[in-house]
Each structure stands twice: as structure tokens, then as C-alpha cells.
């Protein structure tokens, strides 16, 4: 039986109130299974990123039920969500959001250290995954010394190093050129197969969606296909 990792029932997200009220999610129902690589597509403003933010625990849904690995997200306080994110999720964003004061390997080991992994082990695992992503020679470089594609690969390594159950990627190729985009898309697919993590990729890029197991399309805060 396929295990459901992410589920949502009648999830709403409303911004503003009164005349300025906008519903970014309108009763979303979804189930995402383990090891699945899912693409979320749709026009700008349809609610893709809001979906990712609410379901990953970065933002609060206005109402509805969201469960991650069977745990009700709405029952968690801020610390519990932080802990869950540190142990069970990884994030990849369009802007890589690396800490400029830390080297590549230090950036990658950050989630491990937050999760309480010992320093030596964190360093070994981070160096290893950077090597797997083709950055063995760049582990001690600062972000400013890396190209955009390399920075996104560091960001990928950071998202995957803790072997999270779910990886959330928001326009991971948005800032990259065609070659960089292909490179990252390939890596995402390979890593999904290698580590067996659930991946949810919000994207505008059809080529990225084409590599995924399933594609859902959103319009006006709902999945339409």
C-alpha cells in the first residue's frame, strides 16, 4: 500500500479582511505519497507558493487540516514546527538564501547541526553530499565565490543532507540559465531516486514538470487537474 506523507483536507488560506480579503487557497484537498516527485504548476498568483508555504509549515493555513507523516500540522507550536522542519523537511528556493558568512560545507551542515547531529559527523555527511553534487572542490568556498548553478547545488545539498522525508522546492530553477536549469532538474530527479524522498516542486518550467512523477495544476487557489 502506498504511504501518504502529505495530506490536506479543505485547506483555506485567506489574506486580509473585509474589502481587501483575498483567498489564496480555496479548500484544497491533496494527498502526496512517499518517494513521489510532484510538480505543482499554474499561472502567477494561482496559489502555488501559498500552497507550499502552508503545507511545509512556513505559514499558517486559515482553516482546514494538513497532516505531514500523519501528524496534524495545526497542532504544532512554533518550536515544534521548527523541530519538524529541521528533522523531516528540506527546502530549495529560487533565491538560494545561503548564509554569505559561511562556506559551502558550513551552509550544508547547518540543518544537521540544528537537528543535533555531532559536528564531525555533520561535516563528513555534508562534504560527502557536496562531492556527490560535483562540488568536492568547492566545499570551502563562500557563496560569493560560487556561480548561480553552484549556489543552487549547495542549496540542494543543504535540503537533502539530513535525508528529510519531504523536500519542498519553490521555483528551484527560476534564477538559472537553461544549462543550469537542466543540471538542477536532473539532480533533483536523481536524488529523489537515490534517497527516496518525497519532493514537491513548484515551478513554471514545463521541462522540470516533465521529469516529475505527477503534475498538478492550480487555478484560483484550487487544483484543477
Amino acid at each position, binding site marked *: 500500500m502506498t504511504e501518504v506523507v502529505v495530506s490536506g483536507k479543505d485547506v483555506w488560506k485567506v489574506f486580509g479582511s473585509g474589502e481587501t480579503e483575498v483567498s489564496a487557497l480555496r479548500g484544497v484537498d491533496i494527498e502526496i505519497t512517499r518517494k513521489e516527485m510532484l510538480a505543482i504548476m499554474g499561472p502567477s498568483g494561482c496559489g502555488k*507558493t501559498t500552497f507550499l*508555504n502552508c503545507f*511545509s509549515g*512556513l*505559514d499558517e493555513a486559515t482553516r482546514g487540516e494538513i497532516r505531514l507523516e500523519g501528524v496534524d500540522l495545526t497542532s504544532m507550536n*512554533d*518550536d515544534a514546527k*521548527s*523541530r*519538524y*522542519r*529541521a*528533522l523531516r*523537511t*528540506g*527546502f530549495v*528556493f529560487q*533565491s*538560494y*538564501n*545561503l*548564509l*554569505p*558568512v*559561511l562556506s559551502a560545507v*558550513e551552509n550544508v551542515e*547547518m*540543518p544537521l*547541526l*540544528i*537537528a543535533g547531529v555531532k*559536528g564531525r559527523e555533520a561535516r563528513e555527511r555534508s562534504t560527502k553530499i557536496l562531492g556527490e553534487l560535483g562540488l568536492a572542490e568547492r566545499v570551502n568556498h563562500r*557563496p560569493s565565490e560560487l556561480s548561480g548553478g553552484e*549556489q543552487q547545488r549547495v542549496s540542494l545539498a*543543504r*535540503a537533502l543532507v539530513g535525508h528529510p522525508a519531504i523536500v519542498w522546492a519553490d521555483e528551484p530553477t527560476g534564477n538559472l540559465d537553461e544549462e543550469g536549469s537542466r543540471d538542477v532538474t536532473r539532480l533533483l530527479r536523481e536524488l529523489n531516486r537515490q534517497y527516496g524522498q518525497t519532493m514537491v516542486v513548484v515551478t513554471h518550467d514545463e521541462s522540470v514538470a516533465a521529469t516529475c512523477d505527477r503534475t498538478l495544476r492550480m487555478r484560483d487557489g484550487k487544483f484543477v487537474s
Partner: protein
Amino acid sequence: MSSTDSVIPILLFILLVVGLISAGLAVRHRLAFRVGFRNVRRSRSRTILLILGLLVATTIISGSLIVGDTINELDLHYTLLGAGYNDEILSNVTPTGSLAPFPYAVYTQVVASTTGDHDIAGIAPEIVSTVQVWDRSTGVPQPNLHLIGVNGNQSQQLGAFVTDGGQSLAGAAPGKVLVDDLAASELNASAGDSLLLYGVSAIPVPAVVQAVVQDNVRGAFPTGGVGNFGSIFTDLATAQKVENFTGQINLLSVTNVGSQQGGVALSDSVSATLNSTLVKIPSAAGVTVQETLKDGLATAQSAGSSISTLFLVLGLFSVVAGAMLIIGIFVLLAEERKGEMGMLRAIGLPRRELIYSYYFEGLAYSAGSALAGSFVGVGVGYGLTYAFSILFPEPGLSQRAILDSFTVLPQTLLIAYVIGFLLTLVTVVVASRRSSRLNIVRAIRDLPEPPPPIRVYTYLAYLGLLAFVLGTLLFLATHSGSSDISEPVIGGALMILGAALVASRFVPNRVAFSAAGLGFVVWAGLEPLHTALLGTSHTGGIFIVFVEGIIMVGGALFLFAFNSASLVAGLLRLANGRSGRAPVARVALSYPGRRPARTTITLAIFALVVFTLVAIATFGGTIQANLNNTVAEQSGGYTFFGFSSAPIPDLAGQIERNASLASQFSVVVPLYLGGGNINVSGFSMNPFGDTVFAAPTGQNASSDFYTTNHFPFGSTLGGISASAAMHELETNGSVAVVDQTYAAATTNLGGGGPTAPHPSVHVGEAIRITNPLTGNTTSVTVIGILLEGTVSGVWLNPVTAMSLGFRQETAFFLTTAAGATDTHAAQLAKAAFFRYGLVLYDFRALLAQSIAGTEGAVGLLQIFVGLGLAVGIAALGVVAVRAVVERKREIGMIRANGFTRRMVLQAFFLEYTFVSLLGIGIGTALGILIVFNLSSSPGAAAAGVATFSVPWWNLLLILVVAYGLAMAAVAEPSLRAANLPPAEAVRPTE
């Protein structure tokens, strides 16, 4: 152990606790520690900028304490100089302050009783008095020199005199005198000059100047420092002859074992020994022991503390501004790192870890800035000391002595460091909590913050209720009585704040807090409200200026923060009328309105600093204006007030007949002067006696007191005019006029010492006057109270005065003639009437000295407070630098839409002109208001401050300097913004 020293272990303990807690946190939160410390090293130039911004508070604390230490040292210098090795003095001080003679045998008996006491190094019998000296060789008189008569062989423990040539002398040879540098300068004397010494006997005693000696430890005794005209030293026999003290002395000087300061530790035990000895000597009745050096050192310590407190309180505004700058800097840092922080939160870093990372970063900044600030404070302290040395034209207080007194104590630096470090750290912790609150999604995606929603916090209403209750309790407990006035004022402010917080639960924030802002300004800024609600019996020091200043500036900022949108909209409507400027104005003014919190912080910093500067300048202007008025009141229109030790018969006639003097004076008024006892309702007004004046009638026009004086009255019986009151005094033997000190409830007994309480005298009241010498007594009715208090006493009708026995013309008013100079006229008069011991006090010289002193004090305080401008400039600089980064894309867009470089530059300058001028305007208006309040308070009226004066040119200078420096601070970032290539600016970058 001084109070300062006792604080050090506490501060060190606190520092240790903070260090241990921080070390523990660093071990437990290594990640936050690593991120925090890496951020310190992120950009050297930014770290330097941050440290410069943060060090202001420590610099102000350090500078204030060092100025206090220096004043302590200066006072200590003059105390040690003045007291020499005289640890204790045995004398019989009369109520008038002179030293009564006692038998020489007291000396021999005291020596006999204390021989073998290991704490006493020696005892010297002396005569100490004030004499008139005439240098016959130079022709220069000096009617007010100290005479110290002591034998060299009996005073070796007091040290040796050192001549200007470097030769050591034990004392003056018989018939000769040693003249100290100051007295030599006054007399224009040198070795070999022939002097005449006039003492109580008024019989001149000739003496020859043996040597001019240095004003060192021995040569400056007994009164080194300010107001001293110098001393001459003779052997005991010569002094006895001058003062007609045959077989008598009037002072025993006791020197303790040990160094000059070290001997002070023995003062208590030596005093006890001497007291027990004196009670056994009948001829020593009235002789008491004073611990001269110990008391002097305590006074010096107290004076230094007072100066430190003054500087610290005035520096508090800059310290508060500095704290706001720290918050501003951290808010900006947080915004700059929003993306990184958002990502850290996204991957699971709890919020508290973010706080810790800021904490560790702030810890490094605090430690570094406090260290730098402590040492920058040394420079500031020296600068202030240097300014002090050139701004205070006190005679006897040399610039060299002041600069030599500059003192930096390690414990002072330590105190400044620890307080500055903790203050900065606490502010950093507060700022960290604020900075770590972020929306993860908006932070990661660099989305703008949405406009703040209308917030209704129930807990704020409860907090407001608590503030209101506390404020009410404080107000009720302190609004009457004599407590410090800042207490009920704080209580009232808490009530207003509490009411606003409660009201914000029910009405829009803008309404609640605008009303509170207005309430703050009215409450702290409306003096009649204080008088009506709090009465006039409260005490108040400089701290009230700080309290009212903070409340008023806070009120003005509330008004701005909650009405900035309307203000900006109004200004934009004005700008729209000038079409050419509209786009620039729109861009420039939209930002302050869009970021009210940041703008309010910058405004607060400017307003606080300018408020202090303007308040000090206006206070100085007001004091000066009142000095002019005061001296006009005190002088009665005359140039000099004079005393003579012997009556001068027909002074006016003698001057008129003297060819060299006749052209110098236009008015010469003789006065009868005597000592009486005034009794009001059975109460003796002054236990030391009162002075009685009367002006003889029948004088010619230029000597008639009743028509030449212009003394104003504070009140008269039936409200009659001053001339009518003077006419009444001239013609009616049953009336009297008193000076304003009799209207007070106490009499100062001199020397800044104790005061004696007595009933206040009112017009229409009957007072009884007795001449203790003749026993004659009479009762007169007070018909007027003069505004003056310098020539203090009771003015009687001349017939009444003479009937009581007051008939000696030993006091005078003189006015110099047109074309004559005051100094020259005084010298000629003093020389001509030297044998009468004529001393003249120049009212105008007193005025000039007071004005110069006030200008010096105001200038010094302005320099010190002006340091706070550095905070404002740093704040504006930081905001401007950040704005260029933050608004890069906006700048690119407006450039793409047709803005020229010049327009971008204009927009930036206009924006910061708006913020800085608004801050300067708030500070200026409130600074003037607070001094207006002080000058119109009942306390000011009692102190004779009747005129409020604004030094507009000085304020204009402050405004121009503050605005100019603000524009200089934003010039570079503004130019950078203007020169951004549009293509680069619109491109998103990491």
C-alpha cells in the same frame, strides 16, 4: 573606601556573571555563536561603523566621570595647597568669622600635654588675619592680604618656603616679610621693597620684603585658590605687633605624622586628643578643633561628584539617543539579513537561536564599543578640561593648574567600561528580540511587509491599566509636600500613557496616542499646570530637566508617529502646487511616511540632542539677561560700593578738593554704617547681628542718596513708588526699608555654610532695632522691601540711626564720572584713602565676571552635549547607507522612468532635510519651552530670575551646525544613489 571604589566589586561581579552566562550560552548554542561571530567579521567597515555608533554611550559616561575626577583633583590640589600641612587647626572663631586671640600659654600647655603623642608631628603657634599693606617702594596699596605670623623654628613640620630663585627658607627673619607670588603681583613687590602693614591697631608697622616665595604647599596657606589676593608671612612677634596681640596668638596649627594626605587618617584620633586637652586649659575657653584638611578633602570630593552628576544627567539625553541608535542599527541589520534569517528559520532554526545569534554578535560589538568608548571618553574628558581651562576666567585658577589636574583613574575607566558594556548589551538584547521576529515566507522571498493592521491588544489595555494605577499612586503620594518634583511629574506621565493604552482598546490608535502625545507635551510643558496641581513646595534638581525633556520629546514623537501620513500628505499637496518639484517631493516624502517607526527613531535621536543643546543655550541666555537685570538692581545705578575700616570725614569734599580724584567721580554718597540686632515678633533675625545703614540728609545733589539711587523695590507699603518710599525714609523717623534677604525665611550665615531660620518680614510690619554697643533701641515700620540683596541690611532714617548711635560714615556709594575708567578711578581712591582702609567693590566687574563665568559654563556644557550630535549624524548616515541598498531597484525604476541623477540627489536630500529639520524643530521648540517653564516657575522668581531670553543667534548656529552635519552625513550615500546605473539598479541581485 570611596563610594566609587565600593561600586567596582559589584560591577566586576556583574561582568563576571554576564561573562559566565555568555560562555554557557556559547557552549549550548554553538551554531548561533558561530553565525553571530561570523557576522561580526562580515564587513570590517560596517563593524567599525557599528562600533562608532555604539560607543557614544560609554564615551559620555567615561568623559563625565573623568571630568568629575579632574575637578576632584583640582579641588584636591587647591585644598592641599590651601591647607598645607595644617591637618587640624585650633582657634576661636567669632560669629563674624574673625579669629579671636587667646594666650600664648595655651600653645605651651597643649604642647606639654601632647608631647609623646605618636600621631602628632608638630604644633605651631600662629597669628592669621587680614591686613592692609602698602608697598612704599612701588606706591601700590592692597587692603586685603592675609597675614601669617609664625616663627620658622616652630613651624618646621609645615615645610619650607621656596623663593622664586629656588632657595629654601624656614620662615621670615625678624622685621622682614615673605611675600607669596600672588601678593607680590598685587603689590607689584619685589625683594627689598619697604612695606607698611596695617592691622587692627591701624598703627603702621614697617617691614622689608625678604623674598618673594612660591605659592607652593607652604607659601599658599591659608587660602589658596579662587578669591585669594595672596599672603605675607612674618615672624610671630611682628604679627603680634601689627594686630596688637601682645602675648597672644589666634591659631594653633597641628601637623599629623605621615604624608600630607596620609596624615588625614589620623585626624579623628588627634582631634579627640586635642579636645580632651583643651577642656583642661581654662584660658582656652572658646578654642575649638577643626579638622581642616579632612573636611577640605571631603568638600573637594563632593564638588567633583556634583560636576560628574551634572555632566551625566545632561549626557543622559545622548545616552538615550545612543540606545535608540543601537535599536535602529539592529533593525536595519535584521532587514538586511532578512533572507538569510528566513532561510535559517525555514530549515528549522528556532527563533530563540536567532536571538542568540544576534546576542553573540551584539556581545562582540558591546565589548568592543565599550572598550573604545572608555578610551575615547579620555579624549573627551581632556577636551572638556582644556575647554574648562580657557572658558573660566577665575583669578587664581591657572590654566596650567587645571590641565595638570587632568586625571584618568583606572577604576573610572573600569566603571565606564562596565556600565557602557552592560547598557549597550541590554539595548542589543532588546533589539535582538525585535529583530528576530520575522515572517519566514516574506523574509525568504524578500516581500515587503504589509501595512500594519489595526491592532487591538487586550494585554496592552491591562498594561495601561497597571501604568495608570501606578502613576495615580505615585502622583497622589508625591503631589504635595517637598519631594523631588520629578516624582509627581513621572506619575502624571504614567497616568497619561496608561489612559492611552486603555483607550487604544476602544478607539483607533491614532486618536488614543495622538491625545497622549498632546497630553505629554502639555503636562510636562505647561508650568502653570504644575504650579496649580503640585504647588510650590517641591524640591527639584537638574534631573527634572531630563524627565520633562524625555516626556515632551516623547509626546512630540507620538504626535508625529501617529500623524505622519497626514503631515506628509499635507506637504505633498503643497509640493503639487509647484509642478516642477512634485515628483521629487513625492519620492522624497513617501519614504518617511512609509517607514514611520524608522523615521521616528531618527527623529527622536535628533530631537533629544537638539533639545539638550537648545535648552542649555537658552538657559545660558536667560541667566545672562537676568545677570544684567540683577546687577542693575543690585547696584542701584552706582559704580562702586565701598567700606572703610575707619570713618572717612567728608569723603565727597575730600574727593572734590583732590585734583586727581575730582575728575574721576560724579557721585559720592556717604552712609552711616553699624551693627545692630533686628528683632521681629520676638525673634532675632540674625544670630550674628544685622547691618544698619542710613544716608545723611542735607548733602549736595551729587552726594544725596535719596535722589541719586535707583534701587527698585519688590514691594512697598500701600504700593507707593520707589521715590515716594525713599522720601518717606528720608523724612520719617519711624520707618525702615529692608533688603530682599529679610523677606526670605532664612539667613545665610556665610561661607555657603548653614542658614538660620527666621520669620519673613512683610511691609507694614514693625521691627525692633537695637544697637548692642549703646543699648539704644527703637521700633520702626517696614515700608518697603528692596529687590537688591548685595548690600544687605536695614535702612533707617538718618535721625533714627544717629539716635541709636550709628553715626560713623564708613560705607559709600560712588559713581565714576564720564570719561573716567572704573579700574583707574578705584586705584586712585584706594591709594588716596588707604589709611582709612577703603575697599571698593566694582558692580560692573562683578557683572563681567559673572557673565564670563556663565558663558564659560554654557559653552562647556554645549561642547559636551554637542557630542550627542555624533549619534544623530551616525543614525542618519546608517539610515542613508541602508536606504541606497534597500531602494536600489526603486531608484533604477525611477531613473528608467525619466528621473535625472540630479532629481535622485534632490529626492534624497529632501527626504533627510525633512527628517533632520523636523527633529531639530521639535528639539528647538521644546528646549525653549522647558527653559521658559523653568524661568517662570516660582523657584526661579524666588532666585531673582525674572526675564526669559532666547539667544537667537546661538540657536541659529546650533541649527545650522546640526543641519549641516546631517547633510554631510547623507551626502555620500545620496551621491551613490544618484550615480547608480539604471540598468544595474533594476537587476535583482543576491
